[in-house]
């Protein structure tokens, strides 16, 4: 017995639909959509409506329903969207998103009644529940026109008259009048009536029905159905057959003396036989469903072959299970190393060969899972666009968001974790970075502010940059605030490079200080942003030019969790340094190191390399004397080269990265922890942040 997590499924699938919607609406604002795209928009709203109803979220379902109806009219050309329409639909989509967020957070759903009302106001035919009918029923349930102004009857009659002469009422069997009441409150009573008609047809020939099929199909059916049937089934028997159908509240069958007996209502007409499909289709005038001729060349001609291939080419897997898979592979990788150590096979031996094959398989498996977890950045773009729209609207600023390189992929968890920080950054840009419209005009900038998100691959990393063309930040002002707030001594503050001074906004508490004095025009939550980026194994760099704008650069590892690291001994412990952070390792001779401007440097090729002792930094004694020779790991921060001196490099190994728990996560020099083969825990050193710490100390 399975008990699926409906709520989880609902949330994730609803989000997919909402994001699909948002993407299409964004495109619609730029250029007219293809009919297929409008249909997709409709379909998204439709699916959300159904799902929300199934989960008993009536407010959400009602809002999606209104959207669905408007989109239906748009798709069928009955309304032409204006920018205001698109804006309204976008707001509705945003509201749906907020509702899903509230559902996920177990909080109260924000209402959408006002938006719903506005959408309904745009529908030219506000006939309650019924979307404009587009059925191909031969009775000609037709265009909106056929419903309006009482012309339904004639429009309905037309198609059939030509196709199929009235069924001749000369059936020799007795005529029965079947009078049926549909249970009040039954869903889709009109459709229920049609099902009943079909069932009755199995037992005789339907000669007349009241009300008309047109009424049944357009949601205006009151619940009372009368049918004249030519049938040799006994009235009692027919009564119990019909009475047993779902949603039939009452049924009465009696002999009908003449056709006129059943014609009390003016709305009556003869039940029509079904016309051949091609004819019905062309009458219905519903593209996509109708053009039988076009089918040979259409997608359907590729037929079942394609359908089958699609049926098995993708499956959906809960992300949690992917995480388990990755964890398992991480452990497998560690097992391989343990095995290698335990067996210590002779090179070239059979054991070595087997281990090597095992290793290759595990690596391939790891790469496969890593790739499976990758998602393009585009998958979170709609949320960012929504954030920008929201904030810009609320703050009364005009902002263009340009996102480039959206095809660059990142691990799913990294992407999810980056949504919040990116929203923080966008908020800062819009709230503090971008000037008000008048101010922009005064300084000769375009009235519309501009925010650019750019993604690029750089070696093994992904570079994510967010820039705005706002007022920028002044490093000098930041230094001054830091001193005023007694966060730094004057001397230290003056020693900070401009880049380091800009990083001051990422110190917890600094942002509030700058906000009150309103000097930086930036800083809310930047400490949170930096911490998150670091936790993901990335770094944050801030560049800014006063009056020109600010650019935040983050480099992130595209995949997570398993990484290769140098295991090093220093200060009596073992530390792991990710291989991806290190350019080279080499032996340092003490006599090659010179003092220069308070730092110890050596020349390596053309580079002047600053030597930092890992043990010394960690123990707070940076000036501790070096041994005669020691190994070092070379890395860069910006353009400067550093050599991290250690006591011993134990080797290069794959490690499973475990995040640090509070309060260790507050230490920027560590990127996490790894559990080693012997069960020891090694802190993973982040050389870049370690260097910053060392330089600020």
């Amino acid at each position, binding site marked *: 017995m399975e008990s699926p997590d409906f709520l989880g499924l609902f949330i994730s*699938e609803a989000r997919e639909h909402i994001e699909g919607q948002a993407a299409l609406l964004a495109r619609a604002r730029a250029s007219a959509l293809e009919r297929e795209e409008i249909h997709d928009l409709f379909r998204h709203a439709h699916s959300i409506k159904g799902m929300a109803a199934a989960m008993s979220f009536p407010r959400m379902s009602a809002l999606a329903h209104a959207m669905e109806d408007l989109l239906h009219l748009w798709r069928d050309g009955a309304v032409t969207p204006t920018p205001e329409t698109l804006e309204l639909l976008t707001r509705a989509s945003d509201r749906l998103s907020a509702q899903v967020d509230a559902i996920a957070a177990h909080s109260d759903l924000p209402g959408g009644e006002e938006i719903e009302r506005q959408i309904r106001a745009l529908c030219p035919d506000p006939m309650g529940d019924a979307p404009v009918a587009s*059925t191909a029923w*031969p009775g000609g349930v037709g265009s909106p026109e056929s419903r309006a102004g009482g012309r339904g009857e004639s429009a309905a009659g037309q198609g059939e008259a030509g196709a199929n002469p009235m069924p001749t009422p000369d059936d020799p069997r007795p005529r029965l009048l079947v009078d049926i009441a549909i249970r009040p409150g039954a869903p889709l009573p*009109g459709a229920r009536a049609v099902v009943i008609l079909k069932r009755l047809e199995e037992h005789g020939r339907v000669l007349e029905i009241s009300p008309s099929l047109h009424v049944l199909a357009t949601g205006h059916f009151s619940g009372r159905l009368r049918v004249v049937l030519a049938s040799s089934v006994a009235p009692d028997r027919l009564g119990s057959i019909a009475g047993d159908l779902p949603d039939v509240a009452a049924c009465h069958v009696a002999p009908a003396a003449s056709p006129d007996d059943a014609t009390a209502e003016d709305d009556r007409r003869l039940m029509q036989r079904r016309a051949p499909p091609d004819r019905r289709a062309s009458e219905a005038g519903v593209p996509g469903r109708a053009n039988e001729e076009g089918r040979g060349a259409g997608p359907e001609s590729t037929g079942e072959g394609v*359908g089958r291939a699609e049926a098995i080419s993708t499956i959906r897997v809960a992300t949690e299970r992917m995480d388990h898979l990755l964890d398992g592979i991480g452990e497998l990788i560690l097992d391989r190393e343990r095995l290698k150590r335990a067996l210590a096979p002779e090179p070239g031996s059979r054991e070595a060969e087997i281990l090597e094959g095992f290793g290759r398989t595990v690596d391939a498996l790891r790469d496969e899972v890593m790739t499976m977890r990758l998602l393009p950045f585009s998958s979170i773009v709609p949320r960012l666009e929504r954030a920008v729209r929201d904030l810009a609207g609320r703050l009364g600023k005009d902002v263009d968001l340009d996102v480039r390189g959206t095809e660059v992929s990142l691990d799913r968890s990294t992407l999810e974790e980056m949504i919040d920080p990116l929203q923080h950054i966008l908020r800062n840009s819009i709230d503090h970075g971008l000037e008000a419209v008048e101010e922009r005009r005064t300084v000769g900038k375009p009235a519309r502010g501009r925010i650019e998100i750019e993604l690029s691959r750089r070696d093994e990393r992904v570079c994510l940059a967010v820039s705005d063309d706002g007022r920028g930040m002044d490093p000098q002002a930041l230094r001054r605030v830091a001193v005023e707030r007694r966060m730094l001594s004057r001397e230290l503050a003056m020693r900070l490079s401009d880049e380091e001074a800009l990083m001051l906004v990422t110190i917890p508490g600094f942002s509030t200080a700058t906000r009150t004095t309103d000097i930086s025009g930036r800083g809310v939550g930047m400490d949170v942003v930096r911490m998150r980026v670091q936790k993901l194994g990335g770094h944050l760099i801030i560049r800014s030019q006063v009056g020109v704008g600010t650019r935040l650069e983050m480099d992130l590892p595209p995949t997570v969790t398993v990484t290769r690291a140098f295991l090093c001994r220093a200060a009596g412990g073992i530390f792991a340094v990710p291989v991806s952070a290190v350019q080279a390792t080499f032996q340092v001779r003490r006599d090659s190191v010179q003092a220069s401007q308070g730092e110890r440097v050596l020349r390596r090729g053309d580079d002047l390399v600053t030597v930092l002792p890992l043990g010394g930094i960690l123990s707070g004694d940076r000036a501790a004397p070096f041994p005669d020779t020691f190994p070092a790991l070379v890395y860069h921060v910006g353009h400067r080269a550093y050599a991290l001196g250690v006591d011993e490099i134990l080797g290069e190994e794959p490690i499973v990265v475990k995040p640090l728990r509070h309060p260790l996560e507050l230490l920027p020099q560590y990127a996490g922890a790894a559990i080693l083969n012997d069960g020891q825990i090694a802190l993973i050193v982040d050389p870049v942040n370690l260097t910053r710490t060392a330089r600020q100390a």
Partner: protein
Amino acid sequence: MPIRVLVVDDAMFMRSMIKDILVNAGGRYEIVGEASNGREAIARFRELNPQLVTMDIVMPQLDGIEATREILKVDPAAVIVMCSAMGQEALVVESISAGAKDFIVKPFTSERVLQVLAKILPGAGRGSAAP
């Protein structure tokens, strides 16, 4: 012998709901396959020859009404039940006229779904909806 069912809906969420209802109906139903669009539904129908198809109407690629027509060409005796949302009366009417046997309306309730199915599938046992 349980009744072999093909569940067609583009939303996995909806498929799960129907599946949940059917597998908890005292062993009367067996889900033999799923499809997420009309084309897939036709292919799966040919392959699995299920005794019952629950068919969503609005789906990408090929909608449930067309799929119903195509399946009935393959097997005129196919039993197809449409899964409809509220406000889709016209589409349901069209589906029924295309040959679908009945319909169920979202949001689904177990009782309701089993009742409708029991009435169109004499072998499914009458009136014995799962608690």
